């Protein structure tokens, strides 16, 4: 099903025209309402009327996370405070939190875009849908919540924590859909197993997972353990929250709600647009946002825009899997390494739990990479009584890592349940080199 055929299936020509019109409007709006952007545009000698088509977007300045921090709390807000009806804030673990204010219209656009995502996943008014993103300052919980209500499904605002009670409700209420982080989905599956609830006893059919990068292997594991079909849901609070892009049943990339969020892919070093289909840094411009519009925001997410048109009927551009973050990217002995590459290898071997930790260090002048993985004893056979068997397992993992990373990693086996796990975003890297 398609929620808004008018927009989701618009011809490319009409979409470009609409985007151009909206870009002109948003540039005019920020020029007159946000001193930060007026200054940047004036520095480049750009008047709002110079921006007439979507192709003119390359003339506009970029916005970075640091710009958001520097303008804390309301420096980038365009709407008067009286028009703001909601404020979200990022976790701010690395500096000032990022504050995003939404007008009533922004909340409406968000709900509309989220409705498109849910409808693509096959969720309808007949479903009971659990939102297990954190509710609160984080955009995940309320963002998904408003979309579920908007399509007329019954929302179970479970949030995170209290996992056992949540699982009882999933079983007893016949909950058919869930939105949460992929790592929380795996945590749910583990807790379910501990509680003795089988996937046959629950009726989860659809899962919308996002807020952290995940891989195809992780998708299969979640689908297998929870007995549902797992869809990608992408978003970021600086742009809106969850709803920026979504998978359709074809699951060949995530359709971008590009009438509201215009995507570009640029080379993270040169900031020049990359060739079609090439991986680079994803950049978004909000085309309709009132509260905190943002021009060419550098998401630090690395992905590509997929070529061709999807056979589902939607004409919108699709982004590929997030390959990593520009700031996740580790440079080890001059080689670019993404934690997601390690993850795909770890998840392809059944002897390991879907958890891992990269420990990077510098010994002498040489960078070292250690990959810690947790053993999964249910897959041990009787040969796991010799050191040789464990060494062979280590070697198999090291060999696969070497072929994927082009880098030798030291494998470190850990007992089950020993790698730290969190209920929200998992951290997969410790880089000791930062101390030097």
């Amino acid at each position, binding site marked *: 099903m398609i929620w808004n055929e008018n927009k989701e299936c618009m011809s490319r020509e009409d979409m470009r025209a609409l985007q151009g019109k909206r870009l002109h409007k948003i540039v005019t709006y920020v020029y007159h309402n946000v001193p930060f952007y007026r200054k940047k545009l004036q520095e480049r000698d750009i008047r709002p009327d110079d921006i007439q088509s979507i192709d003119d977007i390359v003339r506009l300045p970029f916005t970075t996370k640091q710009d958001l921090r520097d303008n804390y709390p309301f420096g980038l807000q365009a709407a008067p405070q009286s028009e703001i009806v909601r404020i979200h804030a990022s976790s701010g673990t690395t500096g000032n939190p990022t504050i995003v204010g939404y007008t009533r219209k922004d909340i409406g656009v968000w709900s509309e875009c989220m409705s498109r995502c849910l409808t693509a996943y096959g969720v309808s008014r007949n479903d009971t849908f659990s939102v297990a993103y954190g509710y609160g300052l984080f955009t995940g919980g309320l963002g998904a919540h408003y979309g579920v209500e908007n399509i007329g499904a019954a929302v179970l605002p479970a949030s995170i924590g209290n996992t056992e009670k949540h699982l009882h409700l999933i079983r007893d209420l016949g909950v058919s859909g869930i939105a949460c982080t992929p790592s929380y989905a795996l945590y749910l599956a583990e807790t379910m197993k501990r509680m003795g609830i089988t996937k046959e006893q629950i009726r989860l059919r659809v899962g919308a997972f996002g807020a952290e990068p995940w891989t195809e292997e992780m998708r299969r594991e979640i689908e297998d353990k929870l007995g549902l079909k797992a869809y990608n849901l992408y978003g970021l609070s600086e742009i809106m929250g969850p709803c920026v892009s979504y998978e359709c049943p074809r699951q060949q990339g995530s359709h971008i709600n590009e009438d509201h969020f215009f995507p570009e892919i640029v080379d993270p070093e040169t900031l020049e647009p990359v060739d079609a289909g090439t991986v680079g840094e994803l950049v978004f411009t909000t085309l309709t946002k009132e509260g905190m519009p943002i021009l060419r925001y550098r998401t630090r997410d690395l992905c590509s825009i997929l070529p061709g048109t999807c056979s589902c009927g939607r004409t919108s551009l699709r982004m590929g899997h997030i390959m990593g973050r520009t700031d996740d990217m580790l440079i080890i002995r001059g080689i670019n390494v993404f934690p997601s590459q390690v993850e795909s290898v770890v998840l392809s071997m059944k002897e390991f739990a879907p958890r891992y930790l990269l420990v990077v260090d510098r010994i002498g002048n040489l960078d070292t990479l250690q990959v810690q993985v947790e053993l999964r*004893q249910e897959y041990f056979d*009787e040969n796991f009584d010799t050191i040789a068997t*464990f060494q062979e397992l280590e070697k198999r993992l090291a060999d696969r890592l070497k072929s994927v990373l082009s880098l030798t990693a030291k494998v470190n086996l850990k*007992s*089950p349940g020993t790698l730290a796990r969190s209920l929200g975003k998992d951290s997969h890297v410790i880089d000791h080199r930062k101390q030097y």
Partner: protein
Amino acid sequence: MTITQLSVFLENKAGTLIEMLETLKQASIQLIAITIAETAEYGICRIICSESDKAYNVLREANVAVTRSKVFALEVENKPGGAAKAISTISKEGIGISYLYSFIVREKCLLIFRTDDAERAADVIRKAKLPTIDDDKLVEFA
């Protein structure tokens, strides 16, 4: 001919062994023999104990990486050359010993080992009529 051995993966750091032993203690498991093969980062703790099924389940529930396997248990004479006599019977057939340890229970000297060819080793032991014990008899001894 064979007895049940539990093999536990332990990280090579302070506290991991005692944590596992406390788990067994709480389940009133009696250890008969215990030995550790170690590397710099981890070790395998091999255990012969009373009620091996119960011990196995208790460890699994405690989220310990444990494996259950059958290992040969030969009874040998407690005097110089006792072990050599038994092992030479197996070695001269070209069968390798992966690991071996021994313990004495009720004045019986037992050799516990794994070979690289369990089937042939069993044949050789049977033909040479080497005295062996199994799980039931071990529990009697203990």
